[in-house]
């Protein structure tokens, strides 16, 4: 796409990239700080039409619609914390069963590296890609489970009245290794079987959305210069080459 921008447009686009990187940084820290409700309210889309088509995808499929995302990311996460705390308290009486201890022993660090942010020619949307080498530590009654988790993010952003917002986020997990485990003992992803989502999650479109079985996956797509948003090249379900059809709950991702 060959397009000449004015100085005003150039500096706006440069600033857009900075703002989008900050937005993703906030996502990472909000998630780590267990501020999921605040994240949904402040960082994700707030326009009703965008909220209907918002999505969060992982290896096992897509959550579509902001309320589905909220029910998983906020409510179900809280339910897991409560169950874990109850089980921990039962085993360890030194841990008080109070709301301040929800999330005890948990640390989720998903770093953001290798940023590639492409702002649309029309300036209304942007797409970004990051590698995320991270670590996940969760506590349960049997102790703490830690793992190295290497992932790749593909994210669509949309400009709203109050600034850039997360619209479609896809996180593909390449591998998970527990400390002390040899890489050769980490199972190779299955060819055909769908990966199951963690119990309790409501997945709108269950599917094998991502696999590192053949190493680098074509999806999520590495961003390219573009003029207007195309859902077929986006990070929602319609952009996934393995996607076979939509569920009944949403009306599609076309930018109005």
């Amino acid at each position, binding site marked *: 796409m060959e397009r000449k921008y004015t100085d005003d447009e150039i500096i706006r686009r440069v600033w857009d990239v900075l703002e989008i990187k900050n937005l993703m940084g906030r996502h990472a820290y909000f998630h780590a700080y267990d501020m999921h409700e605040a994240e949904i309210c402040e960082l994700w889309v707030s326009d009703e039409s965008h909220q209907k088509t918002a999505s969060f995808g992982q290896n096992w499929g897509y959550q579509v619609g902001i309320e589905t995302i909220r029910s998983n990311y906020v409510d179900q996460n809280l339910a897991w914390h409560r169950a874990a705390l109850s089980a921990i308290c039962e085993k360890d009486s030194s841990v008080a069963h109070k709301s301040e201890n929800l999330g005890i022993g948990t640390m989720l660090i998903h770093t953001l590296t290798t940023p590639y942010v492409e702002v649309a020619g029309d300036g209304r949307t942007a797409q970004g*890609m990051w590698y995320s080498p991270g670590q996940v530590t969760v506590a349960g009654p049997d102790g703490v489970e830690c793992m190295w988790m290497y992932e790749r993010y593909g994210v669509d952003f949309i400009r709203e009245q109050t600034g850039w917002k997360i619209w479609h986020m896809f996180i593909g997990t*390449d591998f998970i290794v527990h400390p002390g485990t040899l890489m050769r003992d980490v199972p190779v992803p299955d060819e055909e079987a769908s990966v199951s989502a963690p119990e309790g999650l409501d997945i709108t479109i269950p599917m094998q959305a991502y696999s590192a079985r053949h190493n680098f996956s074509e999806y999520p797509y590495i961003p390219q210069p573009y003029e207007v948003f195309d859902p077929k090249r986006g990070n929602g379900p319609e952009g996934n080459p393995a996607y076979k059809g939509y569920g009944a709950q949403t009306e599609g991702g076309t930018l109005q």
Partner: protein
Amino acid sequence: MTELKRERTLSERIARADAATECEKVMALHCYWHAGGIHREEIEQYWTKRHPLTWAHNFGQMKGVDNYTSCYADAQEANAEAYYKLLEPIYPEVKEVKEKRALIEEAMHLLVTPIIEVAGDGQTVKCLWYTPGCIFSSLTPRKEREGMWIWERYGADFVLEDGRWLFLNLKVCCDIAGMMDEPGWGLSEGPPGPPPDEDGAAEASELSQDAENNDAPRTQGEVSIPGPLHYNLSSTQLPQATPFIPVPYEIFSETYDYATLTGIYEEDAK
């Protein structure tokens, strides 16, 4: 530290800010395309057309697009083809994989800790990153995953050609390259790469085939200037100041570039 020689106009400052953003994108694109085995296209689309390019690693420097293509594209495709021939009898599904160059491995070179220095004249950019990464393979002839930790540093020069930022020089300095499953993967026993022969030109090198593990032999391509240009970490290795840390500069020739084989200034060369 070199000071910029004159006050820049607003327009020039905007262009330099844009240059920093664009070069960061091009470097990220290199990482993702490298991960996907998309090498030949990268050379064709994102490397200089007007200037002699260089690419260097610990084992040596390649000069010119033909030399670089012979290593980064030709040898890579030959290796990928050989690996595919090993995999296909074991995993027939790979016949349907669109990008077969990705089957050999995913080189996950992350970009962190950037320094992006745009020239005062806005025509070139000199950059430095750490790249703490890994290389992994899911499908292997041994039917088990493999992984290597690979921590490197990237020194990159970019040049503006016809409104696009393109690679001019890329210098890769590898500190750590060790198999994930091996104890002591962070330390090597000695310098990597082929030793220089008598006339100084290294021949194309082949890793010896491990018959027991059934690895495909890998070709590497010739280097113009043999290494070692940087040493892997070892218990006797001193800190190395390569690639050099970029500083503000006015025009490209004012400070050393990443085709330089030594430090930032000749007097600092070891």
